[in-house]
C-alpha cells in the first residue's frame, strides 16, 4: 500500500512516539525503526522530522532525553516518558480512539 497522507501522519506522530516509550526508554534510531516495522512500512519518519519532533516533546516536558554509554556501543541519547508524558499519552489515546471511531461511523469504515 502507498504511504499514508502526510497530514494524517503528522496528526498521529506524537501519539506514536509516546506509545513506543511507554514500556522502556529508547533512542531515536530505535523509535524510527519500530514505527516503520510495526506499521508494516506504512509509516516512515525521515530523520529531519523525527528529531525535531522529539525535541519538541522534550521541550514540553513529556519525554526526557539522556546520553547513555553502554559497553561496546556508541554513546546514544535515550528518551524516556516523564510522568506528565504518561498522563498526556493516556489522554491522547482516549481522544484518538474517539476520533477514529467517529471517522469510522461517518465514513462508513469498519472499526479495526
Amino acid at each position: 500500500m502507498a504511504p499514508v497522507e502526510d497530514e494524517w501522519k503528522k496528526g498521529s506522530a506524537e501519539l506514536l512516539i509516546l506509545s513506543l516509550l511507554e514500556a522502556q526508554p529508547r533512542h531515536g534510531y530505535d523509535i524510527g525503526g519500530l514505527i516503520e516495522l510495526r506499521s508494516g512500512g506504512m509509516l516512515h519518519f525521515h530523520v529531519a522530522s523525527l528529531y525535531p519532533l522529539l525535541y519538541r516533546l522534550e521541550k514540553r516536558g513529556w519525554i526526557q532525553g539522556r546520553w547513555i554509554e553502554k559497553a561496546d556501543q556508541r554513546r546514544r541519547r535515550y528518551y524516556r516518558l516523564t510522568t506528565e508524558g504518561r498522563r498526556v499519552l493516556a489522554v491522547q489515546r482516549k481522544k484518538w480512539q474517539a476520533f477514529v471511531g467517529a471517522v469510522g461511523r461517518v465514513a462508513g469504515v469498519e472499526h479495526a
Partner: protein
Amino acid sequence: MREWKHEIRKRLAGSNLLPEREAEIIDELSAHLQDQYSQFRSGGATDEEAFRSVVRELDATDLLPELQVSEKIVRSDPPAAGAASTGQWIFDFLQDLRYAARTLRKSPGFTAVAALTLALGIGANTAIFTIIDTLVLNPLPVARISELAAVNTTQQKMAAQSGELQLLSFLNFKEFRETTHSFSHLLGHSNPMAITMTDEREPRRIFVELVTANYFDTLGLNPFMGRFFFSSEDTTPGTAAVAVLGYSAWQSRFGGAPDIVGRTIKLNNTPFTIIGIGPKGFKGLYAVFGPDIWVTSMMAEQILPAPQRKALSDRAIPLLTAVGRLKPGITLAQARAEMNTIAAALEKEYPDVNQGQAVALRPLTEAAYGPERQGLLFGSALLMAIVGFVLLIACSNVANLLLSRAAARRQEIAVRMALGAGRGRLLRQLLTESVLLGLLGGVLGFLFGYAGCQFLWSLRPAEYAQNLADLRINPSVFGFAFVVSVLTGLVFGIVPALRSSRTSVSEMLKEETRTVGRSRSRISLANTLLAGQVAVSLVLLVVAALFLRSIKHEYTIDPGFETKHLALFMLYPGQAGYDQPRTEQFYKQVRGRIAGVPGISFVSWASNLPLWGRKETGVTIEGQEQRKKSEAISTVVNTVDLDYFATLGISFVAGRDFTQDDRDISTPVAIVNDTMAAKYWPGQDAIGKRLQLPQGKHNFLQIVGVVKTTNYQSLGEAPQACVYLPLRQNYSDSMILYVKTERDPSATLAAVQNEIRNIDPALPLEDVRTGTKVIDQALWGTKIGVGLLGVFGVLALGLASVGLYGIMAYSVSQRRREIGVRMALGAGQRDVSLFILRQGMVVVFSGIAVGGGLAFLLGRALSRFLYGVSPNDPLSVGGAALVLLVVAFVACYLPARSATRVDPLVALRA
C-alpha cells in the same frame, strides 16, 4: 566511519543555535545516520550506495526550519542596550525561575538545610512582627484611627513630672461634648470594670464599660449582629437596660449562640437585654485589655460600686475618658487649645472640683496603651532587633552554604559565560535562585511564626484570656513575611553571586575544582561572616542572660507585704443586690466564719488588689492648704477592714491599728505610710495630724497610725504615699477578702470557698488568687519577654554553631591534600587537629572580642530596664561567653578530629 557531523553541520548553517545545543544535536543525528548507514551496508549496499541513500533520507525533509520551530532559537549574541523588551524580560525571568527550581530540586539536601535555616530566622521575625502589628502598629480595628484623639485631665503642675492622667467626670464630659467645635463627635467610655453577670447558670465575673450612645458610631464600627445603642437609650438615667456584647465574649461565654440578640442577662442583679454583638476583633479602646460588654452611661447607677453610684450627678467622681473624631482640617494642637479653654471655664465655674485641672489630649494610637506604652515600645523594638540579628545569622549561614556550592558550580557557570551569558544575566539567574530559596524559607517560616505566635499567646493568664487582645494575622503580616523573604534571598545571595560571576572564563575553565589556592579567599570571606555570627550570638546570649538575672532579682524583690501565705477572694456583694446593712453584715459574717477555718491565721477585707493600687489626686493637708493652689498631692488610697496590716504582715512605725470603735459615729480616722509621713510632716510626729481626701465626704481625717511603705502599683517601684481608711467609716460594696494562712494557701482555698458558698451560693467566686500568683501576674509580661530572649539567644547560638561546623568541615575537606602532605612530612595526628582547631578558634575568639564590645555598648543602653543587675554583670557576660566557647569548640573539634583520619596516601593520590 563517514563524516556525518560535517554533513549535518552544513545543513545547520545559520541556525543561530547555542553552540552547546548545536553540538548535541549534531552528535545525536550523526549517531542515527551511522546506524542507517550500517544497516544499508549489511543489506549488501556498497559504501557509495549506502552513503547516498543516507544523504537522500537526510534531505527528504528540510532540517533547519523544522528545528527552528522546535528549538525556538535563542539568540546567542546579547541584544543591544535598551532593546530588551518587557516580553523578553519576562521570558528570561520565567526561564530563570524554571532553571532555579530545577537546580534546587537537584540538590535536595542543600535546599532543605538552607530553607530550614531561613525558616527559623523568618519564622522568628514573623512571630514578633505579628505581635507588634497587633499591639503597636494596628492596635485598634477602628475607622481612620489617625483622626481620633483621647481627652483626659491632668493636674497642671503634676503633668510635667508624672503625666498621670485622670478620667473626666460625667458632667465635665457633657460640657466638653456640648461646647467643642474641634471634634465632629465626642464619645465617652469608662475603664473596664468587673461586675457580676448572671444568665441561666451560676453568676460570673465579667468586665463592662459604660459608654455614651455614640461610642460605636464615632469609631466607625458596624455590629457583627443586631444593632448598637440609639441616642434615645442614653438620655434618662436608669431607663434603657440594653447591652452590646463583645464578639469574643459572645463566643467564649455564650458559645456563639445564634439567638443571643434579644436574650436577657442580669448585670449586678439588673436585667439587661442584649441588642447586638460588637465587631469581631474589637475589644474596646485599650490595646491590651478590653471589656466583655458595653452598656450606656445612663446605667451608671446600676453598674457602679456604691461610692461612685452618683457619678452622673456628682462632678467630683471621675468616670470617663473622652475620645473625639477631629473635624477635617483641625489639628491636634488646635483641638488641645480649645479643650483647654473649656477646661479653664469649667475651673472658674466649679473651682472646688476642677481646681488646677488641665486637659491632656493625645492621639488615640498613643492613648491606647496607657502607662505601659514605653515598656511595650521598648520591648518591641528590642525583640525586633534581636530577631533581625537571628535572621542575619541565618542569612550568613546560607551565604556560606552558597559559597561552598559556588565552588562546585564553577564549571557550570564558566560554560554559561563561555556561551555568551553576560555578567548581569548570570547575576540575575543566581539571584533568582537565592530569592526562590528565600521564598521557600519564607513559606516555612510563616508557618513556624504562626505556630510560635499561637503558642506564645496560649501563655496568657487564663483569667483574662478573652479580655486580652487577639493576635491578628492580617495582610500586613503576609506582606511582611513576603518582603523579608525576598530581601533575605537578596541579602544572602548577593555576595556569593557577585563572586561567582566575577572570575574570568578562561581562568575558571582551566581550573580544576580540586585546586586549593582559589578557595582561600572564599574561606576568608566565610570566616568574616562566621566571626560576625559569633559576635551577634554572644550579644544575644549576654542580653538574654542579663534579663534572666534581672527577672530573678525581681522575684526576690520584697513588695513589703506577705505573699507566700496569702490568698485573695474577690467578692462583690453589692452586685448581688445586697443593700448596705446586709453587705456590712456579710463582711462581718465572712470574717467570723473564715477565721474559724483551721490553718487560717488572719482574715481581712480591702478595696485594693495588691499591685493594683487606686490613686487619688488633690489631697489636702491641714495647715498646708496653700499647697493646694500650686501642687496637688497624689496618694494611693485603700479602704481596709480590721486586721488588714496583720494579714499582710505590714508593721506599724507609730500609732495604732483601726479598731471596732472607729465607726461611722466616731471621729473619722486614717492611717498613712511612713513615706507620706516623712514627706508632708518632715521632722514631726504625723500622729494626730489631719488630712482631707478630694472625694471624701468627711471633712478632715485624723491620722492614728503610721505603717511601713509597701509596693502599691508595681514591683520595685519608688516609694509612694498611701492613705488607709477604715471600712466601717467608708462603706464599699465590692471588696477583696484577704486570708493569711499558716501553710501553703492553695490547701485552704477550697475550705474558704465552701464557707462563702454556705453563706450565699449566689455570690460569684471566680477570681481567687494566691499571693504568689499576684506576683507572677505582675511579672507575666517581663517573663514572656525574657523567655523570648532566651529562645532567640539559643536559636542564634544553634545557627552559628551549625554554620561554624559546616565551614570547618568544608575547609577540612578542601584541604585534604594539604593535610596529607603535612602528615606525609611527619606531622602527627595531634599536630593536625591542633592546626585545624586553632584555625577555627581564631575565628571564634575574634567574634567573641567583637561581640563582647557590642554587648558592653548595648548593656549601657539597656541598663535602665534591668533590675538589680549591672549591664556589665560578670556572671552574665562570662557565662554567655563560656557557653559560646564550649559550643564553638565542639563545632570545631569534630571536623578537626576527622582531619586526623586523613590517610596521606589516599589524599595525595586523589
